């Protein structure tokens, strides 16, 4: 239980609530990853949705063709990690802003972190183990 007490005059200041620069690092990360995602995501959207017939030409063979190139594998891997952590960190901020009860905040973040781990693990697994010569 929290005890309420008044400090004596001139008593040492309470320790700063923030003992490390975690929030600063997260703020910097949002900007650095944002710049990278500018190229990665806008390029991805342009290629997939706008150029050359857009989504209508996408099928398994199209994906196989792209992921036979290490360049696009690396592009998609970088995009996956940066976007998921960028978005997850944004959602963490939103949960911190709007969840009123500690328990709500805690469980929403548990759901968020579990979903992030799931998506990162699954996405990474798929990019690395994809076989373009799948015999159907």
């Amino acid at each position, binding site marked *: 239980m929290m005890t309420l007490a008044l400090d004596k005059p001139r008593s040492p200041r309470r320790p700063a609530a923030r003992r490390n620069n975690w929030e600063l690092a997260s703020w910097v990360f949002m*900007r650095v990853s*944002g710049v990278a995602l500018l190229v990665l995501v806008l390029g991805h959207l342009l290629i997939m*949705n706008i150029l050359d017939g857009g*989504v209508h030409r996408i*099928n398994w063979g199209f994906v196989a063709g792209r992921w036979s190139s290490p360049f696009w594998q690396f592009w998609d891997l970088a995009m996956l990690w940066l976007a998921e952590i960028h978005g997850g960190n*944004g959602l963490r901020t939103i949960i911190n802003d709007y969840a009123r009860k500690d328990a709500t905040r805690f469980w929403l973040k548990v759901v968020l972190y579990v979903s992030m781990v799931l998506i990162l693990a699954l996405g990474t697994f798929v990019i690395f183990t994809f076989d373009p010569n799948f015999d159907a």
Partner: protein
Amino acid sequence: MSAEAAEVSRPSRRGTLYRGDPGMWSWVAHRITGVLTFFFLFAHVLDTALVRVSPQAYNEIIETYKTPLVNLMEVGLVGAVLYHALNGVRVMLVDFWAKGPRYQRQMLWGILVVWLLVMLPGAYFMLVRTVTEMFGGS
């Protein structure tokens, strides 16, 4: 406290009041477009993971992306991501450019114009095939 007294004691906030400013709405839109994109990413990684199951499974799910309704949602997604990206650049200019805060409003109108200029041809190329198939006959 009477309303008059409240009026008198209120400090002048001209030039610093954020609430109701276009700057606030740009922030609201930034959050909404960000959350939407996050949920789309969740679904998108799951659907793309089907390439690992079988070509048939992947082709089946990607066919649903080619239906008129989903095609329209695609335009919405691209619009949301593009706004988020452009406004993100504006946020960074406000953060790191000495004159950024002074021009935040002009930059907002600027990115909205850029958004429109990109989305007009973008939406055209995303929708042209669907619209032709629905109304164009051949």
